[in-house]
């Protein structure tokens, strides 16, 4: 290890002390990472709640930092950062199927100038696009010139667009000042471990200061640099989200420790994602048969960390060139060829007017939910059920069962309706899976749900769902999700109480691993 790496390591030796200082800062900011146990009701939840206004302003239209915002606002990534400085066992950069959707993959690389034009083109076409992120396909901070040139161009031409980056953290401490200079106020760090023994099973090597490190030593440098970078960012008031890949048998239990470590350093939000390890991706984990978690395993881990910190549960693990609402991909509309042919006029006024309408929609939704929730007041029951919802966005039940590419999942209890995840149900990329019965696949994906809310559903799938014990509900078509879900749950409780039906627990569900067919 070279001298500076040793220095990094020793400066992280007094974690506890630094952690305490960060705790004070975090508490001072009143953010979701308040000390001790319990958490403020901010972050990924609906509405401002008790979030300080300055933080609410930062997250309220960022689809990744606010669960509530992700129903209304879109984001885009530009693939200007192809190089990477670490190797992860869940990543294979070589594989790019056009129908593939996962991090680390893109169809074409962009120069900063092309990226800036793409951002303006998308911003003019999709007025609810509020966030530009750089997330690779390598690591943005392994390509600092390209990354910061892109931020500079956008900062100068479209200052209303929020800038965001996602990094493995290895080079983060060196770039914190530049990140602050360009007003990048959201940074995501992927932290899969704080124990180098575990890290050695996830990262075969890192490239740091002109040298390739492997094993324990590599993971030790990485974790030290990640945590140091996190501390430096939160000191400057930059919101940090931590992404962690849940790898059963390797870091699943350990992520509780990671959660505590990042919370104590002032992280705002923790996003625990399921491992994607389909063999056809050719990753180390894909090839050695490492499995991903089931839906209930993932939820249980997220639930166990939630007492400590805000959890993100609406991540769609998107590509480094994704465009649109989370869960949709419009990147095919904005290829370099198409963009360069576009006449782009950046119209900040139209965008503002559109976004004001979106805000009205949001307020109406929250009011509707509150009204319905008031009716539930006084009811007390330990029953919790999950419900799947087919939606195209805007917080409405507005998608046909047969057209849904994913279902959003809400946990219903007497406390209300809480978003707890989403399940992809689109067909697999043609690779031998095309013949699979899609209805069976959908049932497997939402098998832990008691009901599925849809705008419309045919008679045939309706019967099969009922047979599988999932109630298809179409009476709330085009109404607000949460309000409708609470109303349905109230009726469900009434039926249970009157003895008309018996409450039974549901089983587990599968997380889809395949490729997203964007054209479907």
């Amino acid at each position, binding site marked *: 290890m070279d001298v500076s790496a040793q220095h990094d390591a020793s400066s992280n030796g007094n974690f506890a002390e630094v952690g305490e200082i960060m705790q004070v800062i975090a508490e001072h900011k009143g953010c979701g990472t308040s000390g001790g146990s319990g958490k403020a009701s901010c972050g990924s939840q609906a509405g401002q709640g008790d979030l300080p206004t300055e933080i609410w302003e930062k997250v309220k239209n960022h689809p990744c930092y606010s669960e509530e915002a992700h129903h209304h606002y879109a984001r885009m990534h530009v693939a200007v950062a*192809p*190089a*990477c*400085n670490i*190797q992860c066992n869940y990543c294979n*950069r*070589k594989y790019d199927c056009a129908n593939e959707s996962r991090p680390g993959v893109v169809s074409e*690389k962009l120069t900063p100038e092309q990226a800036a034009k793409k951002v303006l083109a998308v911003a003019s076409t999709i007025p609810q696009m509020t966030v530009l992120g750089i997330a690779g*396909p*390598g690591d943005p901070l*392994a*390509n600092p010139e390209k990354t910061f040139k892109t931020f500079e161009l956008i900062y100068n031409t479209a200052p209303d667009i929020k800038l965001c980056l996602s990094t493995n953290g290895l080079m983060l401490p060196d770039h914190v000042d530049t990140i602050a200079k360009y007003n990048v106020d959201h940074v995501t760090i992927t932290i899969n471990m704080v124990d180098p023994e575990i890290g050695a099973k996830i990262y075969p090597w890192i*490239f740091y200061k*002109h*040298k*390739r490190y492997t094993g324990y030593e590599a993971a030790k440098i990485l974790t030290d640099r990640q945590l140091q970078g996190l501390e430096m960012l939160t000191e400057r008031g930059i919101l940090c989200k931590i992404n962690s890949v849940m790898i059963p048998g390797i870091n699943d239990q350990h992520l509780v420790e990671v959660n505590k470590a990042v919370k104590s350093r002032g992280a705002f939000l923790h996003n625990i994602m399921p491992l994607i390890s389909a063999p056809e991706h050719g990753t180390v984990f894909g090839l050695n048969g490492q499995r991903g978690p089931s839906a209930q395993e993932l939820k249980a881990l997220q639930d166990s960390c939630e007492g400590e910190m805000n959890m993100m549960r609406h991540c769609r693990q998107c590509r480094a060139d994704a465009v649109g609402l989370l869960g949709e991909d419009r990147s095919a509309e904005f290829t370099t060829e198409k963009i360069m042919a576009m006449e782009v006029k950046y119209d900040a006024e139209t965008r503002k007017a559109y976004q004001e309408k979106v805000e009205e929609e949001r307020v109406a939704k929250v009011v509707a939910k509150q009204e319905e929730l008031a009716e539930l007041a006084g009811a007390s029951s330990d029953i919790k059920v999950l419900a799947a919802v087919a939606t195209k966005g805007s917080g409405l039940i507005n998608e046909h069962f047969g057209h849904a590419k994913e279902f959003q999942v809400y946990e219903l209890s007497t406390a209300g309706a809480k978003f707890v995840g989403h399940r992809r149900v689109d067909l697999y990329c043609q690779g031998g899976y095309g013949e699979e019965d899609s209805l069976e696949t959908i049932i497997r994906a939402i098998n832990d749900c008691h009901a599925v809310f849809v705008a419309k559903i045919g008679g045939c799938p309706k019967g099969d769902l009922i047979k599988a014990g999932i109630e298809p509900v179409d009476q709330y078509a085009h109404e607000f999700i949460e309000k409708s879900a609470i109303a349905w749950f109230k009726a469900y409780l009434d039926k249970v109480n009157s003895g008309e039906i018996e409450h039974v627990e549901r089983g587990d569900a599968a997380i889809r691993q395949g490729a997203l067919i964007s054209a479907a």
Partner: protein
Amino acid sequence: MPFKIIASQCTSCSACEPECPNVAIREKGGTFVIDPKKCTECLGHFDEPQCVAVCPVDNTCVIDTSLPRYQAPA
């Protein structure tokens, strides 16, 4: 004059380009190539060849055995 990049394995990620102390690497036809006249195997610069150390695909930056090894000037 020694390292070359096996084009069929290159992911074109560009990680090697800025690491080369001799500025011997550039993009050509969608992948990256090493100028054998400029490559010094990183001798005198670093303990290990930088392109090899940073490349995400093993055995992609390799010694070009068709050429004589680099000789440091006397």
